[in-house]
């Protein structure tokens, strides 16, 4: 099992009446709500928490990309990842991911991921999302009906750049390059493992299976709701007679809160959960799904965007009890959480779990408390699933055996003798 501690980096200062008085948390969010001075401490706290998760034993620490979004402060996940690579030792750096269709040329992603892999000593897990419609179409102006074609082309370019050892010309429809010659190159050969966050389209299932990419479903709806989609994925895996049913072919994101008891969990975390589900997910439905962004086949399958809900926000004002019982969140004592996580892992058949342990406007102390309890009292007891696939390392990073760490310069006093002056 691989557990990745994930932080969306939400802005924790949205006003209480945000939902009533604002059009959307995403795309056209009121930029006056952002306070750069406050963000200074916030960014540093969030990065400290990611490093803390590495310290307490998570397998990976994860970052992602969103634009103009009140619950995501990472337009550039690679900037955060670069800093984490320097400040951590063994943990995988999971960038889930960089939206490859948004970069011009997309080769930029191949270069930056290679840099991250080199700096971290081969600890990168790379992610190639198509990107949400909010990010890709409305914020970054990509034409919805052409987004997927452009995405596929970007994938082809990046993969070729990672594989080929001679300069080559790339005559794409969206990118034309005369001299593709990747420099620097990733440590992991031929390239870091690739995860694809998807929203249930059959085309993406096939894309992952064709390329041996891991498919992950990053929803906020929780594992009970995620079951249908993940089942559709596994059905597809079976339908295509895929060589194996490795659970590492799949990942799932789950909001998790741990305390000593179920009651304590509610007391400590319910306000922050409410902040996230009721304020942060207030997305104007008109931005949920630009026409042409999803394929007809996907719409016909009845998979609705998790944001495509009636006006008024994604989730009704759900109280704690409903969120817990409805499986949106996994919360409670270590034993409760363990039971729920076992269900999740077995029912969805996922080897990669992306743990959303920082939620909404949760202060750092509570986040540390919940994170440590999960790492110490839950995670060790979830380690032994899928023993038959223990050696499957296709979907996880393969670091160098010998790695250096930051701050390894000699003392000033030693410099002169080494230089010989």
């Amino acid at each position, binding site marked *: 099992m691989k557990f990745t501690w994930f932080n969306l980096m939400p802005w924790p200062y949205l006003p209480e009446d945000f939902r009533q008085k604002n059009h959307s948390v995403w795309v056209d969010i009121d930029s006056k709500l952002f306070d750069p001075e406050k963000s200074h401490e916030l960014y540093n706290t969030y990065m400290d928490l990611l490093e803390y998760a590495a310290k307490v034993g998570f397998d990976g620490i994860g970052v992602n990309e969103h634009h103009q979004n009140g619950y995501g402060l990472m337009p550039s996940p690679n900037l955060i990842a670069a800093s984490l690579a320097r400040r951590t030792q063994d943990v995988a750096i999971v960038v889930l991911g960089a939206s490859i269709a948004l970069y011009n040329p997309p080769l930029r992603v191949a270069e930056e991921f290679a840099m991250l892999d080199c700096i971290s000593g081969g600890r990168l897990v790379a992610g190639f999302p198509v990107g949400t419609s909010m990010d890709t179409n409305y914020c970054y*102006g990509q*034409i919805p*009906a052409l987004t997927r074609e452009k995405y596929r082309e970007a994938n082809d370019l990046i993969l070729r750049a990672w594989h080929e050892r001679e300069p080559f010309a790339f005559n794409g429809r969206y990118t034309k390059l005369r001299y593709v010659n990747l420099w620097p190159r990733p440590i992991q050969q031929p390239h870091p493992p690739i995860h694809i966050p998807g929203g249930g389209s059959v085309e993406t299932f096939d894309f992952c299976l064709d390329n041996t990419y891991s498919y992950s479903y990053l929803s906020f709806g929780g594992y009970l709701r995620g079951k249908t989609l993940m089942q559709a994925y596994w059905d597809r895996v079976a339908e295509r007679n895929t060589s194996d049913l490795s659970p590492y072919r799949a990942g799932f994101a789950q909001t998790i809160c741990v305390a000593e008891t179920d009651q304590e969990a509610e007391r400590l975390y319910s306000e922050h959960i409410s902040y996230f589900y009721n304020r942060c997910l207030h997305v104007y439905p008109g931005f949920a799904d630009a*026409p*042409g*962004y*999803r394929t*007809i086949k996907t719409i016909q399958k009845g998979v609705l965007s998790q944001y495509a809900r009636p006006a008024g926000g994604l989730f009704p004002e759900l109280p704690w009890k409903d969120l817990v019982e409805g499986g949106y969140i996994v919360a409670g004592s270590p034993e409760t959480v363990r039971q729920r996580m076992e269900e999740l892992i077995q029912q969805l058949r996922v080897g990669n779990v992306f743990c959303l342990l920082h939620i909404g406007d949760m202060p750092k102390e509570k986040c540390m408390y919940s994170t440590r309890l999960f790492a110490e009292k839950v995670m060790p007891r979830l380690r032994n699933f899928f023993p038959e696939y223990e050696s499957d390392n296709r979907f996880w990073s393969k670091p160098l055996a010998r790695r250096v760490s930051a701050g390894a310069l000699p003392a000033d006093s030693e410099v002169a003798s080494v230089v010989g002056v």
Partner: protein
Amino acid sequence: MELKTIPTPRVVVHYYEGGKGQPLVFLHGAGGLDLDMDFLDALSQRFHVFAPLVPGYGDSEECPELRDMLDFTLHTWDVVAALGLRDPILVGFSMGGMIASEMAAVAPHDVSRLALIAPAGLWLDEHPIADIFALLPYQLPHYLFYDEVAGSKVLSTGTDLSDPKFLQAFLVRNARQLGAASKIMFPIPDRGLLTRLYRIQAKTILIWGESDRLIPPIYAQVFLKRIANADLAMIREAGHVVPYEKPEAVIRAIAALA
């Protein structure tokens, strides 16, 4: 009007045909032909009307090969050729006006009469056009109609978005139709037409609803200034969907070209 199909080099095209007289090609807007059928019936009393659907509209097949403005422009010329027409009166509404303008700009000797009804294709920073790709169904009437209340009734007849079956069909239709439109209209309906308008030689009539809240009438002034032989018919008590709201006035303006 009768629905027919015709093969073109890239895709089979669906089109409506009806009437007698001088041939006239009508290019629909991003909403398709739904609101235009009465207008086309009236138009076919005076002209031999051909109204092709952009691939993906109605029940017609999508055409992934059409990606950019030049593709759309040349495809529509292919349709005119397939229909066996030479120098028809070319009429375009909204997105169709954008395509018609491009057709007249790339082949100025093949179009002698051009009617542009509230055409898209230009962008003025001081007068931004609403983002039709982010509007919810209930918001459309404000931008489309002079009479919003009547417009709401027309648009909501037979629509029930709370019915999952209907919603799915609605989303599929939107994805097909507006998905196709997005290729030339998203995120801003400007593909450089301004720099090509000077090439249009056709006798041109611009037709605009005085209360157009989607593409404000001020855009007409730019077309007038850039097209050598253009006039403007400003129609009172009409919004963006002027062919729907004032069919007779629009037909009179077109007839002046003939």
